[in-house]
């Protein structure tokens, strides 16, 4: 649901093997970054998946923790699969420092590059809200800094809400993001 640039997303109760693991909830996301933290395994990824599946009126794009770029296609072909706007893709690749990787396949790129490329793919799909699952996981400090630069670039040039989940919230302090916490059993969301 949209109102004054604010996107409200909701999700239902989620069960795993018959046991409720995540309580239903909703979040009003303002343009900019919102971070959901919580312990590993608490249900952060489940929440993102539920948001991606449950809000059919909103175009939400989920960028998975594992980049899921198709390994048999070059980066250019991967991007062309979700958008025909080649110029836009080039612009984002350039600002994410990936322009030279256009002809490379994911297996020829580092994990940090693949993560950023996956975010570019998410962006050019023109989402109303961008969902990022543990974008800093398994990255070294240099790559985390590059990733944060990219997120700052998105926040400045596209006024869309970004909802990211991470169990390492300190990585994202620089973004001055609105913070939420997912905890409890079954897990529920609360504002920090």
């Amino acid at each position: 649901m949209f109102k004054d640039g604010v996107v409200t997303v909701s999700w239902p109760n989620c069960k795993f093997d018959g046991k409720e693991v995540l309580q239903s909830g909703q979040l009003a996301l303002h343009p900019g970054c919102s971070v959901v933290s919580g312990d590993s395994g608490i249900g952060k990824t489940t929440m993102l998946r539920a948001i991606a599946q449950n809000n059919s009126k909103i175009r939400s794009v989920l960028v998975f923790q594992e980049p899921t770029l198709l390994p048999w296609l070059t980066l250019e072909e991967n991007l062309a699969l979700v958008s025909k706007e080649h110029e836009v893709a080039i612009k984002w690749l350039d600002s994410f420092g990936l322009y030279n990787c256009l002809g490379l396949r994911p297996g020829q790129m580092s994990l940090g590059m693949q993560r950023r490329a996956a975010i570019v793919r998410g962006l050019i799909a023109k989402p109303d809200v961008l969902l990022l699952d543990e974008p800093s996981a398994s990255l070294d400090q240099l790559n985390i800094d590059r990733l944060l630069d990219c997120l700052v670039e998105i926040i400045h040039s596209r006024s869309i809400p970004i909802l990211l989940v991470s169990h390492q919230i300190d990585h994202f302090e620089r973004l001055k993001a609105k913070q939420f916490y997912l905890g409890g059993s079954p897990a529920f969301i609360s504002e920090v």
Partner: protein
Amino acid sequence: MRIVEACLSLLGLLLLWWGVSAISDPLVLPPPDAVFYALVTEIGTGELWTHLGATLFRVVMAFGLAWMVGVVIGVSLGRIKLLDRWFWSWVTTFLNLPALVVIVVCYLALGMTETAAILAVTINKAPLIAVNVRDGVRQFDPKYDEFASNYGLSFSQKVRSIWIPQLEPFLFTALRTGLSLTWKVILVVELIGRSSGVGFQIHLYFQLFEVDVILAYALSFIVVMQLIEWLCVRPLEKYVQRWRSDGQLAQLQV
């Protein structure tokens, strides 16, 4: 190096053949030179090309049809659990149906025609392709399906960019095993009910008890199948699966 080893190995097989034929009845197992002479004679008369061409045409037609039918069945059973529950037993039934039975039934139903011959091989080989493809579909990585659904990819995009690349190893296995088995069944089809082809010639020279010509025809078709493997299948496989070696240490150029 691999080619040298393969050539040396084949040379060893040739020597073994020579040795065994030297101590056995030459009418039953003629030596390689006699078979080579028969081959040259058949090439000289033009007979070899005519019959080789007829068999190759049937192999291509029958295997092409079996391939299409098998892929459609395999993908359907692999993706739709309801179809799999209902029709998997049909596939295994046809998989275990002897080729000879299918050939005889097709000839009885449609007459001794080219259509019957090709249809019989198609019915016999499609289940083999279907089994391979179904196995491949069941091993699809769910993360790519989730990506396709999340980004709203069209059906044709999913087939072209996600399904086929994941199916490639299974399609190549099906291609290899299917082709090698198809031409053997084609020989039976020709032996029973056609008046051309390698199978027909083998039947003819069996009645004349000329084993050297029989072996000449068999060898010539083995050479054709090897050429298909080395000149078509392998280069194609190497090209489409080039991404699999990405990031491997062997690729690193220091």
